[in-house]
């Protein structure tokens, strides 16, 4: 793959495994094993079966008729919101729990922002009867309280991250510290295409089912091999990477990644990483991140807890730098309005994360016969409070 990872874990200038020696054996074990394990017939069979019977895949590629009329193109929604646990996060969690089992790990840790990845991880741990500890920023625990309860019901221990901004990046720090202290028996299920190599590649492979299905489904709908546009929101970037994966080498397909501008890109309250960030090292990989001149990581802001991460995955940084994908951003207001529009035009309450991708539709200039696929990465139940407060319902 032209845009894939090289043997040292790099995508162009980005990636690598910038981890302290304490994490080296953990990461090295994964690096040596992950491709071998995920290509074993027995792994593939169990992964496919669980995706089908437990997650409910394939997720539909839904032709959104009223959206299509409004925006003057054929708009398709890839319905990851219909997955078990309500988002694309479960695809990766299933893949990693099967991997962890085959590595003989007895304990799972994870970080979570909005709680979707935490819920997905707690779910697969329940499924397999494996101990689960989820780190979550104290601030996120408050704004995503229902997901905290879900994780607890599923048997996970939820540990608040109280350092720094008390959000996703701090939860990630705490999970890394846990992994340092428990190097032998614990597997860390990272929820996005971030972290040291091989995580960005491994997570992208597990999420690539999204574009694998979408490509076939588009053909069934339209008789066309390729769409003109593929769009997705980006925090760390896992649903976007899954949505882009099988279109990366089809250069005619325009890839649009939508970041969270928060209160505006230049408001000081934003998570629009490619606009505000510079190259550096975050959570084990060389990537683009929001930081001060002194190299301190800046605390990002978005109304969406799944998008307020100060970096993006290294493969995204590469796609951005070489112009393979276009990175853009929409504000909190634009996303919430787009979320409401989706409810009223299509009868779907989207996660606020996914609503960012939908908001970008307003800014696009499509031709009449363009086929456009948007990843509807998650459902909006977890965001009802935010929607209700904003619109006064």
């Amino acid at each position, binding site marked *: 793959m032209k845009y894939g990872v090289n043997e040292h874990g790099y995508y162009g200038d980005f990636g690598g495994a910038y981890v302290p020696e*304490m994490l080296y*054996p953990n990461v090295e074990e994964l690096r040596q094993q992950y491709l071998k394990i995920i290509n074993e017939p027995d792994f593939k069979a169990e992964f496919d079966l669980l995706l089908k019977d437990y997650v409910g895949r394939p997720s539909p590629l839904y032709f959104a008729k009223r959206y299509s009329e409004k925006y003057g193109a054929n708009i398709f929604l890839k319905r990851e919101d219909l997955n078990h646990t309500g988002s694309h996060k479960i695809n990766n969690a299933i893949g990693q729990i099967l991997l962890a089992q085959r590595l003989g790990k007895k304990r799972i840790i994870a970080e979570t922002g909005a709680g979707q990845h935490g819920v997905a991880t707690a779910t697969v741990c329940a499924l397999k009867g494996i101990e689960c500890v989820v780190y979550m920023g104290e601030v996120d625990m408050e704004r995503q309280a229902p997901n905290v309860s879900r994780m607890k019901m599923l048997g996970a221990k939820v540990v608040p991250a109280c350092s720094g901004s008390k959000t996703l990046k701090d939860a990630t*720090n705490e999970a890394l510290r846990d992994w340092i202290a428990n190097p032998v028996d614990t597997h860390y299920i990272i929820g996005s295409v971030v972290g040291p190599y091989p995580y960005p590649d491994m997570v992208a492979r597990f999420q690539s089912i999204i574009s694998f299905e979408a490509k076939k489904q588009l053909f069934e709908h339209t008789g066309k091999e390729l769409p003109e546009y593929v769009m997705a929101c980006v925090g760390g970037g896992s649903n976007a990477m899954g949505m882009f994966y099988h279109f990366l080498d089809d250069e005619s397909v325009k890839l649009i990644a939508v970041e969270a501008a928060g209160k505006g890109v230049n408001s000081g309250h934003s998570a629009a990483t490619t606009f505000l960030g510079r190259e550096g090292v975050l959570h084990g990989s060389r990537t683009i991140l929001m930081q001060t001149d002194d190299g301190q990581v800046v605390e990002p802001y978005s109304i969406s807890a799944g998008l307020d991460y100060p970096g993006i995955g290294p493969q995204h940084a590469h796609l951005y730098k070489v112009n393979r994908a276009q990175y853009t951003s929409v504000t909190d207001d634009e996303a919430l309005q787009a979320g409401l529009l989706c409810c009223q035009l299509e009868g779907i309450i989207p996660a606020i994360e996914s609503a960012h991708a939908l908001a970008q539709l307003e800014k696009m200039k499509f031709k009449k016969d363009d086929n456009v696929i948007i990843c509807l990465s998650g459902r909006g139940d977890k965001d009802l409070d935010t929607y209700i407060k904003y619109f006064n319902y």
Partner: protein
Amino acid sequence: MNRLNHLFATRKDNLLSIYYTAGYPQLNTTLDIAEALEKAGADFLEIGFPYSDPVADGPTIQHSSQQALDNGMTLNLLFEQLKDLRKRVTIPVLLMGYFNPIVQYGVEEFCKKAAEAGVDGVIVPDLPMYEYETMYAGFFKDNKLSNIFLVTPQTSADRIRKIDELSNSFIYLLSSSSITGGSLDVSDSIEDYYKRIKAMQLKNPAIIGFGIGDNATFKKACEYANGAIVGSKFVKLLESEDYLEKINGFIHSIRPSL
């Protein structure tokens, strides 16, 4: 030969190094603390520059880093402060911190500035061996800076050999796989690990860190290595108001006599 090499050429055991965070507890106390530590008998120093996301550190050093950042510490300012380093301190000094601030400063510029200030070595826990070797080793060598690598109980023998090859002052042995500020692991498996390393007869001396904070743990570490590093316990001491007066007593509580 830098000051570190000289130290290890002349002293083989019971070496004591102290870590503290620059800019903590006050912004401008970096050299006062260094001077007091030298007077009290510390053999070399590790001056930490703060980072917002110190994943290898426990609560004590996390707190000192955050406080230092809140006080306004930056790499620029640290190099300003270190302009007087060699007027006030003669023992070897290392800088320790995470890689991202160095990337922003510019790795080459960082090495140059450190050498100009009279710094002898650098410890960057999250700069891996592969990237160091392929991209940055030249900057360190040009500026006669030692790069210190960490070894943990899980580090393989092959990798330890490679680290020994790339090192030119000492190897930092972690007493356990943990973040900073834990307690010293004295289990049989850890003893086996120290013995295993000793038996490898590495060309570089070894210094043990993580979990060293009193005379008992210091003595234990020195049975297996050339010395030990105290970090979190010392940073904790800096919380008290009259910490400068307490430094002498602290050093002697770790290593009573020389």
